[in-house]
């Protein structure tokens, strides 16, 4: 029955399809998310069903209304059959007078109208509560998904492409929502309709009843095989579409690179290959869907033909009235719409379970970094931060990004860190707020291992100004107050002054209300960095970390900011990562990193006197280290 001739189950592996489904990079990226074998699709459907059951009132209304609507629906064939018999029977035996026949017709007609109206109202109730449950469930899932994404750590977000997550939150959520009304409730409705109808018909005439229902087992079987196969194809298709989406996203984001290399043709070819891949799968999906739905419709009509034939012979033999035959035929007509929409049900199950799998894969993830069971709030006393033999690798078993690094910074003191790209400078700033956990050694604040305190208290105590700050599409004051939305206006202005961005803001037409980002005013790199400094300085942290966050700010402004901060952040232990030596020469201690190891340490003077790596960089950057190497080219 399978369209390409293979047995329906042979190509339906959930587990080993991953390698076929995804390029290597993805297989690796998702390794953590689908580990332990993907759950079966019925499991997913059950899980959604259980979630839907939480809306007790809605479910009760939906089910009650389904029963009522089905009952009224099923009354229609009987009424029609009676009317036919009423009209015809008179001619046949002449037992009744035209008047009684006429009143019987009126009787049936009024009942038909009443029953139809009631059926409509109950169907409304049923459909609406079904839709409502779906929307409420989607609303809950939406919030859960959002909350989970906010909690999942950096290592998760490093692995999963942002576009991919957005797709899950938008399209997959929709898929799960649809399964509630289009899948689950409609399936219940069909089961009730078919079940009650079967009882009714079988009690009226067992043989004809069986014939009327003969298509049901076939449809049940066919829809199951189609669902499994569609589910499998949906999953593959979604992965291919994700690849295609990624190609488009990267192309648009990197459009300048594409243009600079005249690589438009190259990119289109790349796109075409991915699109051809997706299209091929999509075609297979369409073939499976069409084959199953048309076969099911055919089976339905076969049943109708059998009833006409056998029932007709009986009517001729006189063992059955024409009215009863009409009743059976009408009953089958009632089932036509459900049978036609069975394809939708099947599709929504297939899509919903595959979407659900993708959505739950994220929702079920426990953040690798979370509070220890008995974690208490961090108690900052002396404000002393210690790295004790800290090692760390981004990939388990991979190259260490940090190798046994130790240092100590006390309140009011500054630690400077320099080193070539990839030497581990930023890694240190990532470990402090526990964006990642150390692989070896430990980090303590006032003697408390940072893994033993609550994340919330830790991250409130340790603030990092990032190298490449993300500004939000909002007013400037919203951006500066990002970490404390209830702060006073004056605090915002003070922070802006500290970061030397106040003058710029004052000159804007709408001042602090000016919208930045997306379509607002676009800021230069240096201005962005100053806003980022302002929003962090506003929070008065115990440990303040600058991750090369002044690279785009000129040296003079930077030194003003540094002085202002030294006065303001007296209570903070400061860590400054920079490749501009002027920014760290006054630090109490300077670490020189290379390949994750500390290769030199000491004050500026001792390092210069040592004549090592640091001294060489210093020589490159300039005689007095203020400028960024004005004399640098002097060999």
């Amino acid at each position, binding site marked *: 029955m399978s369209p390409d001739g293979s047995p329906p189950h042979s190509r339906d592996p959930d587990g080993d399809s991953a390698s076929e489904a995804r390029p290597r990079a993805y297989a690796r990226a998702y390794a953590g998310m689908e580990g332990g074998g993907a759950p079966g699709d019925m499991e997913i459907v059950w899980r959604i069903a259980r979630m839907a059951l939480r809306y007790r009132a809605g479910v009760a209304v939906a089910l009650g209304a389904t029963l009522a609507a089905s009952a009224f629906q099923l009354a229609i064939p009987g009424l029609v059959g009676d009317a036919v018999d009423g009209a015809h029977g008179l001619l046949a035996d002449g037992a009744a007078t035209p008047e009684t026949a006429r009143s019987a017709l009126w009787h049936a007609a009024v009942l038909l109208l009443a029953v139809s109206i009631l059926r409509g109202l109950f169907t409304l109730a049923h459909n609406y509560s079904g839709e409502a449950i779906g929307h409420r469930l989607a609303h809950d899932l939406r919030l859960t998904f*959002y909350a989970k994404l906010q909690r999942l750590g950096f290592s998760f977000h*490093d692995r999963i492409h942002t576009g991919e997550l957005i797709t899950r939150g938008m399209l997959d959520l929709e898929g799960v929502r649809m399964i509630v009304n289009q899948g689950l409730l409609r399936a219940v409705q069909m089961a009730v309709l078919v079940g009650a109808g079967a009882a009714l018909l079988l009690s009226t005439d067992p043989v004809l009843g069986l014939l009327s229902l003969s298509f049901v087992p076939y449809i049940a079987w066919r829809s199951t095989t189609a669902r499994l196969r569609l589910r499998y194809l949906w999953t593959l298709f979604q992965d291919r579409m994700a690849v295609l989406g990624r190609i488009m996203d990267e192309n648009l984001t990197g459009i300048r690179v594409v243009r600079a290399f005249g690589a438009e043709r190259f990119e289109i070819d790349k796109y075409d290959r991915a699109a051809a891949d997706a299209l091929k799968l999509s075609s297979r999906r369409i073939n499976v869907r069409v084959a199953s739905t048309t*076969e099911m419709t055919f089976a339905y009509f076969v049943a109708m033909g059998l009833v006409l034939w056998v029932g007709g012979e009986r009517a001729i033999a006189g063992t059955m009235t024409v009215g009863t035959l009409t009743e059976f035929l009408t009953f089958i007509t009632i089932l036509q719409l459900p049978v036609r929409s069975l394809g939708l049900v099947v599709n929504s199950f297939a899509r919903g379970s595959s979407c659900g799998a993708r959505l739950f894969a994220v929702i079920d993830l426990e953040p690798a970094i979370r509070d220890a069971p008995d974690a208490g709030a961090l108690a900052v006393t002396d404000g002393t931060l210690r790295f004790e033999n800290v090692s760390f690798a981004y990939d388990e078993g991979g190259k260490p990004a940090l190798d046994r690094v130790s240092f100590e910074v006390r309140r009011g003191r500054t630690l400077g860190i320099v080193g070539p790209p990839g030497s581990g400078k930023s890694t240190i700033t990532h470990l402090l707020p526990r964006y990642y956990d150390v692989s070896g050694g430990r980090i303590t604040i006032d003697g408390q291992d940072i893994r033993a305190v609550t994340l919330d208290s830790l991250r409130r105590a340790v603030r990092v100004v990032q*190298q490449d700050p993300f500004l939000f599409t909002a007013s400037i004051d919203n951006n500066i107050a990002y970490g404390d939305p209830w702060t006073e206006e004056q605090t915002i202005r003070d922070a802006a002054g500290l970061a030397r961005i106040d003058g710029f803001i004052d000159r804007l037409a709408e001042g602090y209300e000016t919208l930045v980002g*997306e379509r607002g005013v676009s800021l230069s790199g240096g201005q962005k960095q100053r806003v980022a400094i302002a929003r962090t300085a506003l929070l008065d942290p115990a440990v303040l970390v600058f991750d090369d966050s002044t690279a785009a700010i000129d040296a003079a402004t930077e030194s003003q900011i540094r002085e202002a901060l030294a006065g303001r952040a007296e209570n903070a232990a400061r860590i400054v990562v920079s490749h501009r030596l002027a920014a760290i020469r006054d630090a109490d201690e300077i670490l020189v990193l290379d390949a994750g190891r500390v290769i030199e340490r000491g004050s500026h003077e001792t390092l210069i006197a040592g004549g090592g790596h640091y001294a060489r960089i210093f020589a490159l950057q300039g005689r007095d280290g203020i400028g960024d190497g004005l004399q640098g080219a002097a060999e």
Partner: protein
Amino acid sequence: MSVAAQQTRPPRAVVGSQISRDEEIFGAAYDRRVAGRFLAYVGPYGRWLAMALGAVLVFTGAQLLIPLVIRHAIDEAILADGGDVAHLQLTAAVFGVVILVSYAANYVQDRLVGHIGERVIFDLRRAMFAHLQDVSLSFMDKTEVGRMMSRLQGDVNSLQEFLENSVTAFGDLLLLVGIVAIMLTLNLELGLLTLVLVPTLALVRIVWLPRARLAFRRARETNSIANGALAEAIHAVRTVQGMRREEVNYLLYGDKAGDNLKAHLSAARYAQAMVPVVDTLTGAALAIVVVLGGSLVLGGALEVGVMVAFVFYVQRFFDPIRSLTIQYSIMQRAMASGQRIFEVLDVPLAIVDPPDALSPKRMRGAIDFADVTFGYAPGRPVLHGVSFSVAPGETVALVGPTGSGKTSITALMHRFYEVWDGSVSIDGRDVREYSRAALGRHIAMVLQDPYLFTGTVLDNIRFSTATATRADIERAARAVGAHDFIVRLADGYDTVLDQQGRNLSLGQRQLLSFARALVADTPILILDEATANIDSYTERRIQVALRRLLEGRTGIVIAHRLATVRGADRIVVLNEGRVVESGSHDSLIAARGLYARLYAFNYASFDDMPDDLVAPSASPRS
């Protein structure tokens, strides 16, 4: 701890874009121009479409025949003078044939429609993607990638639903017409009386449609607002976690999600309101058939079979109307999506290759700017009459404060934009005479923000230089000093870079983009603030490599640091879109102009330099 409980004043906080995300055009559900343009994309599948429509005709015909066959069985076989079994069997056989034909036609129709729909969608998406490769950068500069992606994916997907539905809708319409015709033929009086009910539907349209349209629209709008906020949360997750904004954001997002829920529930009420209406109409029609048809049968004016056939037809008659709500919402969405798709396809190609575009095998690399005036927004030029020349093999540095037009100059060499006035020439020919592919082949650029693609290190360095061998790539990586860190990666050159190389440091990413430019082996090399993200020590190493790299090539260097600039053969100093000075480092120092002032004050770069230093009329960037 709720947001409201914390303070009486509302927080200075929002999530998601504050600009209404959807400038959707909710006009009529059916827009002839949009629909007409779809047809152009269906064109290539004309034969398939003709076959599909043929199948629709056959399928509808078969569907219409079924009640007639049943009528025939009842009137001519069952009720004909005590019954005619042979005739019944014959009729049953005819029924079998009809449903077989119906099955085949249905299969052909659905399959063809499915494939046409899918292909048209893919064609449309590709047309958009390909078009975006060619539209001018000034358009792309103003466009957010996220919004464009929602057009490429969301809008295109909602069209698919529409395309598949439109053929079904056509079939439904055909069925409607067929039913009316048959009912009127079977019995004019009964047929007319049944059809009396249809005009009441017009009332429904007048009352229901405008309200439903608003409700549907509101549901879609709140959807995109909530999704916009979700997208922001994902993009900004590192900042959100660093600033501990999870809780506040969750509550703010909850408000948006709540609005969305309310809007959806209201839309669902409107959509479902049609159900009892249609059911009542069906019931009324059935009642008419029973009373009137029954009376006619009683009076001997109508055969029983015809009455049964009417029962069948009446029930199918309202099916298409029943699905109207779904169809309507799909249509409305599709037209809005179509508008947005065609908006993209209609973005004019500002820059098109001339018919006989030059595509030379080699270029020497002589660059000539003659009186070039250029700007991004009409009436606001950023370059005013800029003229300078670069000889083949020469290295020229461009310096000047932010907004002085340095990057615009490099963009014009590559013809990313068209000059307003004057001309840019390479090897004595206007850049407008070359094909854009040729310019891409002979000019390499390293940009300030390195951009890497998902793929291996090898793929990223090779990029579009398909001819580069592994050895070429390694040589380039060594030359820029990237080889050492590459071999230390898990799989060396075959390491897959996820998330645009987030697993590398910014400096390392920049080294890869250097290697990429080197592999391209072009006579002209443009470095646009390319070393801004690299520490001095590494930059020093790159400088050495660059000197070798620039040998025999024409180099244009925009640099942040004066150290980088000093080594250039010539320095062109720009201010406010004008060339203010030009010459070697020593001659510029001697001239005591802007460059000398900058140098004397020990500023590392022109950026963020105090305004009074830059001179007369510096204005803040906005």
